[in-house]
């Protein structure tokens, strides 16, 4: 596993997502209310760019007429067929046994540790003064 520095934390504020290619793999990193998540930008169903879909909540029902809508913004819905995946785990909600979106751990690391390495900084210039978003791949 290699750790990739993808952006200074200020460049990925809450509510934004960044698309990038690492080792020929299309990746998207999301900032959801200050938490960071990484996903392979390819739907395991038919291969669409999954991470271009909207972030929605999880609608569940214990009984007809009873609807609980929770985890707002933590479910990614595919821009083609609408398949839903948990952004934290990549779990599919319609067919969890056969399909899972590939999730990658994302962390914020202080510049001091990033400068030391061992990180792949891609084209990001790093300095000890800032914090950085780091994805493990």
């Amino acid at each position, binding site marked *: 596993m290699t750790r990739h520095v993808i952006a200074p934390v200020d460049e990925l504020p809450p509510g934004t997502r960044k698309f990038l290619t690492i080792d020929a793999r299309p990746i998207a990193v999301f900032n959801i209310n200050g938490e960071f998540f990484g996903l392979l930008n390819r739907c395991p169903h*038919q291969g669409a760019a999954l991470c271009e879909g*909207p972030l929605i909540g999880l609608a569940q029902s214990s009984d007809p007429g009873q609807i609980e809508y929770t985890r707002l913004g933590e479910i990614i819905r595919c821009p083609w067929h609408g398949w839903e995946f948990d952004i934290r785990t990549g779990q599919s909600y319609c067919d969890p046994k*056969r399909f899972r979106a590939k999730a990658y751990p994302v962390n914020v690391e202080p510049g001091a540790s990033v400068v030391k390495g061992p990180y792949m900084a891609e084209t990001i210039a790093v300095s000890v003064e800032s914090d950085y978003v780091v994805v493990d791949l």
Partner: protein
Amino acid sequence: MNVQFRSKPEPGSSAQAKAAIADCDIHPARKTPQELFPYLAKRWHSHLETYGKHPYQGMMDGPPYPKAQPNASRRDAYPPDGGQQGSSLSFMQQQHLDPNNVVLGVLCPLNTGQGIRNQDLSAALATAINDWQIAEWTGKDSRLKGSIVVANEDGPAAAAEIRKRAGDKNFVQVLLLSRNVEPLGQRRYWPIYQAAEEAGLPVGVHAFGFGGNPITASGWPSFYIEEMVGHSQCQQTAFASMVLEGVFERHPKLKMIMIEAGFGWAPSLSWRLDKNWERLRSEVPHVKRPPSEYIREHIYWTTQPMEDPERRDHLFQVIEWVGWDKLLFATDYPHWDYDEPSRVLPPGASEANREAFYLNNALKLYGLA
């Protein structure tokens, strides 16, 4: 959700590395309603702006059920230069035709003038949409072929439009929708079949329509998902009506294409038809052969949304009944339930069947082989 994927070429590999395909259901859109005005008499410009289109379904505009994605289309298919999905030829080429190596794309324009109550306006819109297809699509990309859109509830007007376009290589089929005022085999629609047979053109019946009838045989269901699966009911009605009204006896050369309503139900409906025909034949003496024979002879099926049973041998059994020579691959681009060409047909088909499925059946049916 087929689990048996074919390997997908890496991004950046040349389009020609993929096998050539025919896509028999592509939906071109207009950027604005006014995009049709150059093809419409001035009289209709002000009419549309003043009165709009008044469909049989009783709603002023739009589909009877809300869609699951914007414009019922892929969210990644908005052209970068603006407009709704499917409204830019250059972006369609870049996103779909080129990378998927589509060598034949059949256009099925929707939301045109089919199923509106003003028959003169319906006919004018049909003519306009046909001229628009030539000017904006088929005339600019020879891979694309148009559908002759007709005023479906006005048989003579529809037949006149078909005769006007007969022989025009920009068009490969006549387009009807599945939800009409009456089942499609009934006599008000016969002039359409007469003209199509004379022109040597198949008649495509695409899911949806604005005939005012509910999607089910027992009223309006609550959910969009019920409309999505209900298309097969409408298509079954059309299919039984065509056979039982004797349309294929009158028009032995007529071919029909069932577009976007599945095909897995074809065997069971055919078995029921045959069984009842054995007992009730005297009610419909014009139906001279078992219904399944007409169906297998005259009906073609587009594949999207592809049948997707848990066990692939079940899929192959259905296809064996329907006929490998009767399936026409389709993606439905840019609509949200698009089928990705490389992920539709599981392994197990012979090379000849695979080529028939993806390309050769379409070339042959449309007279382009």
